Each structure stands twice: as structure tokens, then as C-alpha cells.
């Protein structure tokens, strides 16, 4: 392991492919971490399952939804809620890596600067695929059915996953800003609670007071939940899907560069 020849300098720039290859290395590492802390995966999936059972059997009888049964109304909302809540793991993991000095190590290596976050969010997306698949199974057990065609069902899952992906970037930013794992956990939930509960995820917005309804109907989580629900039920309009996609792209354009900028800054 002697030092290399003293004559040649390493290349001044990384190959263009570095972002991709480095992100794969980081994503693999993050997926291994998820697999080796199964208790984390178990508890983060128990939570949405409990939400399904709670709303389907405890509150569901008292909630009347127009045009379909409550299970069909609830589950698409839970798909969205699950990927959004699941994103807080990115904030916690990044804050832990910062504290452990692992981010310093990455930043001192000749790797692509955006790869750590790209790998982190990609690993979260892979995890979300499994969690969503599990929620579909749970949904079928409590009476949920895809009412639209196969393409609509795939579209619904894709929109939920894409939305989860944008939230991973948002939470990556939170984790890099607060820098402490415990704080990151709490800081992630603070903006989420009003967004998730003052939304059309669990209940139709018609019963809310008008001021709250105005917020609940126009905020991104409701817009995305509406599109996912429409696709699950086979009733989605083009404009519902377009609005959801615009929110997803818009949030990604804001949060991905912000998180990357924060990472570079160190």
C-alpha cells in the first residue's frame, strides 16, 4: 500500500457518470442499513396499518363519503400519508450521519457532491415501494379495491411514490438544518401534522368550517390525495392528475437544490 507515483495528478474533474455511480453506492449502503435495523421498518409500517384499522373500524362508521365506501376513500389517502411520514426517516438518518462524522468523510472523498442526497432519497423511494405494496395488501384485507383499470392503479402508485420522493428531499433539508437526530424527528412532524390532518386524506373536506376548508382543499397533500384517490377509483380527471404532478415537480424544484446547497455548505 505504498503511495502512488509522485508524477501524475488525479483528474481535475469527476466523470459525468459519478453522480449516478456514487448515488448507487450510497443508496446500497442506506438500504443495507434499513435491512439491518428491521425494528425501524417494522414500527414505521405498523403506524400506517394502525391508522387504517383505526379509521376504517373506529371512525369510519361515522364518516360518510360521497360516491363510494369508506375503505375506498381512506386507503388512497393512507398511501399518501405513509410515504410522507416515512420521509422523516431521511431527516433522522442524515442528522445522525452528520453527528457521527460520516458526512465529513463523504465530503472529503473525491465523490459527486449531490450523490449522498441522491442516494439517500433513492433508498427511501425503494423502501416506499415495499411499504406501499404492504399497504395495498392491508387495504384489500379491509375492503379496499382498485376500481379503475390497471394503468390507473399503476398511475396512483406512481404519483404516491413520486410525492414521497419529493418529501424525502424536504426532510433531507430538515435533517441537514437541525443536525440532531432527536430534533430532526420532531422537527419533521411539526409541519406535517396540520398538512396531513387538515386535508382530504381521512375525511371529506365538506364538513370542515369554511376557513379550514379553503386551506384543506388547496394544500398539496390534499391535491395529491385527490389525484391518487381518483386513479384508484377510476374517476380521476386529467386536471386532478396534472395539478398533483405540478405540486410534485414544483416541490422537487425547490427542495432538491436547497438540500444540495445545504449539504455543500457543510
Amino acid at each position, binding site marked *: 500500500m505504498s503511495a502512488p507515483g509522485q508524477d501524475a495528478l488525479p483528474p481535475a474533474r469527476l466523470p459525468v457518470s459519478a453522480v449516478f455511480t456514487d448515488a448507487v453506492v450510497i443508496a446500497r449502503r442506506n438500504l443495507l442499513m434499513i435491512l439491518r435495523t428491521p425494528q425501524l421498518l417494522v414500527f414505521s409500517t405498523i403506524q400506517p396499518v394502525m391508522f387504517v384499522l383505526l379509521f376504517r373500524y373506529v371512525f369510519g362508521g361515522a364518516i360518510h363519503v360521497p360516491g363510494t365506501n369508506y375503505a375506498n376513500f381512506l386507503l388512497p389517502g393512507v398511501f399518501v400519508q405513509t410515504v410522507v411520514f416515512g420521509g422523516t426517516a431521511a431527516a433522522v438518518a442524515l442528522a445522525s450521519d452528520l453527528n457521527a462524522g460520516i458526512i465529513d468523510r463523504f465530503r*472529503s472523498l473525491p465523490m459527486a457532491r449531490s450523490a449522498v442526497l441522491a442516494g439517500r432519497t433513492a433508498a427511501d423511494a425503494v423502501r416506499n415501494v415495499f411499504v406501499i405494496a404492504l399497504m395495498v395488501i392491508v387495504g384489500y384485507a379491509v375492503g379496499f379495491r382498485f376500481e379503475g383499470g390497471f394503468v390507473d392503479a399503476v398511475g396512483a402508485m406512481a404519483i404516491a411514490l413520486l410525492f414521497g420522493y419529493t418529501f424525502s428531499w424536504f426532510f433531507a433539508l430538515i435533517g441537514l438544518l437541525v443536525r440532531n437526530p432527536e430534533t430532526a424527528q420532531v422537527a419533521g412532524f411539526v409541519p406535517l401534522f396540520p398538512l396531513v390532518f387538515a386535508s382530504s386524506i381521512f375525511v371529506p373536506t365538506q364538513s370542515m368550517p369554511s376557513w379550514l376548508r379553503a386551506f384543506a382543499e388547496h394544500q398539496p397533500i390534499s391535491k395529491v390525495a385527490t389525484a391518487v384517490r381518483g386513479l384508484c377509483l377510476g374517476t380521476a380527471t386529467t386536471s386532478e392528475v396534472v395539478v398533483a404532478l405540478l405540486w410534485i415537480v414544483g416541490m422537487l424544484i425547490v427542495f432538491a437544490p436547497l438540500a444540495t446547497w445545504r449539504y455543500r455548505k457543510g
Partner: protein
Amino acid sequence: MTAAAPAVEVEGVAVAFGETKALDGVDLTVAPGTVQGLLGPNGAGKTTLVRVLATLLRHDAGSARVFGCDVVRDATRVRALIGLAGQYAAVDGTLTGRENLEMVGRLYRLRGPEAKRRAAEALERLGLTEAADRVVRGYSGGMRRRLDLGASLVGRPRLLILDEPTTGLDPQTRNDVWSFIRELVEGGTTVLLTTQYLDEADNLAGHIVVIDNGKVIANGTPRELKARMGSDVLELHLADAATLQRTADALRGIGSGEPSIDASDRRITLPVHQGAADLMSAVRRLDELGIVPSDLSLRQPSLDDVFLALTGHGTAVEEPEPAVTGRRPRRGAAT
């Protein structure tokens, strides 16, 4: 790169965290193939300088180059040239030792088989082969530190930057790390080493820079620094801290320099040239004043004496750290 480019070339580097000047115009040149010791108490600015050289922190003024490559403008090259092992073992607890090193190898842009080979090589050299496929969470502190050192080596760095590599290690592991560093240097690697331990700098480093409060206060070989202390050092320990100042005043005029007080150890050191004669003068003065030291000795000067003479405090002094370090130890100004 020209053959003449120093491994490290730092000119007038300054870094401020708000009001705190972590580095205040530091100059440093390290010749290739040597070990440079960077010595100073907690909060002196050692880690800040390391972070500047490792491209983790941007300096506010001055310039810093590694083998002629600017750490800001040519950061990618610098990162490929260096290996960094920090005070905190930055290894991933949920991965195995081997997975950690292979990951770092891949991020040094090595192909899969080469990353595997170098990881195995580093594990072997650091005596971690048996533990290689265990998850790092179960490693001891010393094993983690060795793995961290291994991670800094898989890229075969020309410049190895070690930030307090043996802090908190047991003596055996510390010796292992020392002999390992010596082997690397024999192989042509340049090493920049920060430490609070004078014996470590004395043992490993060919050149030493002492920094305190963000400034270089001494620069030279261990021998040169010690020569500043005269040929011998008279050392007194007192049972009662209250008599320190009075004793030091009494000793003024004896020997070849000013007496230095190390209050935390209740210790006074005095550089002397005529050992026996100066010792007898000191004893006579103390006897006149009725001062009885708990210990009195004449010995060879150590770097600790140099440090005490230069900074007015020993290396073990607990200093209030700059505000920025207290809350976020990883942020930069830790030492």
C-alpha cells in the same frame, strides 16, 4: 505537478466563526515524505486547519494547497490526494468493517474488484481480518479507530491527515497506530498529524508546528524546540498552590530563562544551563524562604516544557473552548 510542490503549503490562512478567530494567519509548509506534527491545546485551531486542508471548511483569507492543488479551486483533485481520519471514528455502525472500506474504496472511484482487494489489504494491515465481516456496532473503540484509519488508506493517499489519531486509545493500540504510521511514511506517504500529546509528536514527527489561539507560535524539529529550553530543566512540584507565585519569583535570575508556572499541576519549570550549580542556588533560595517543594528534580527538557514556556500553560490545561465548538463539536473549530 512539479516535483518541487510541497505536500502542504499554507499561507496566511484565516478562519473566523463569528467573533472567534479560529485561525489567524497560519503559515505551514510540509515537505513530501515527512511527518508534520501539529501541536496545540484544545481550541487552538488544529482541527480547523485540518478541515480547511480536507476541503471541509472554506477559509476566509490566505491560500492552502496540497501538492500544488488549491483546496478550494481544485478541491476534487485535493480530495483524491488525501486521506482523512478524524477524532471521531467516522465509520458506519450498521455495516461490517469490510463493507465500510469497500464503500469508501468505491467512492475513491475504484472499480469493484480493486476496492475489494484494497479493503482486504487494509483490514489485514490493521489486524481486523478476523472481525472484517462483523457489524461495526459490535467493535471496541480501538477497533473502530483502526477501521477509521483503514478507511483513510484505501484511496492510497499521498497525504494522510490524522486528527488526533490516538486520543482515547489504550497504550497498546496507540503503539500499534504509531508503528503503522511509521510504516506508511517509509512507503513514501506524507503525514500531517494533530495531537495534544507531546510524546506522540516527539516520537513520530520530523517537524513540529505549535499553534495556540489560531496562531503559529513555534516551528521546528523536536530537537530545535527542545534546544530553546537550555540543556536541562529544573522542575518543582508544590503541595500548596498558593506558594506558586512566590516560589517562581524566588527562582527568577537563576538558570537560563524565566520560570514557568503550570497551575493545574502545581508545577514550576525553569530552563538551566549549569545543572548542578543552578540546582544548588535554587535550593538555597527556597531554604531561605522556608519553601519545601514536594518534589524537586533536574531532567532533560521535553516538548511539554517547550509548550509550557511558549504558551504559559501546559498541554493538559482545560481551556474554555470557543463558543462555536461547544454546541456543535463536528462543526469545525473543535481544536
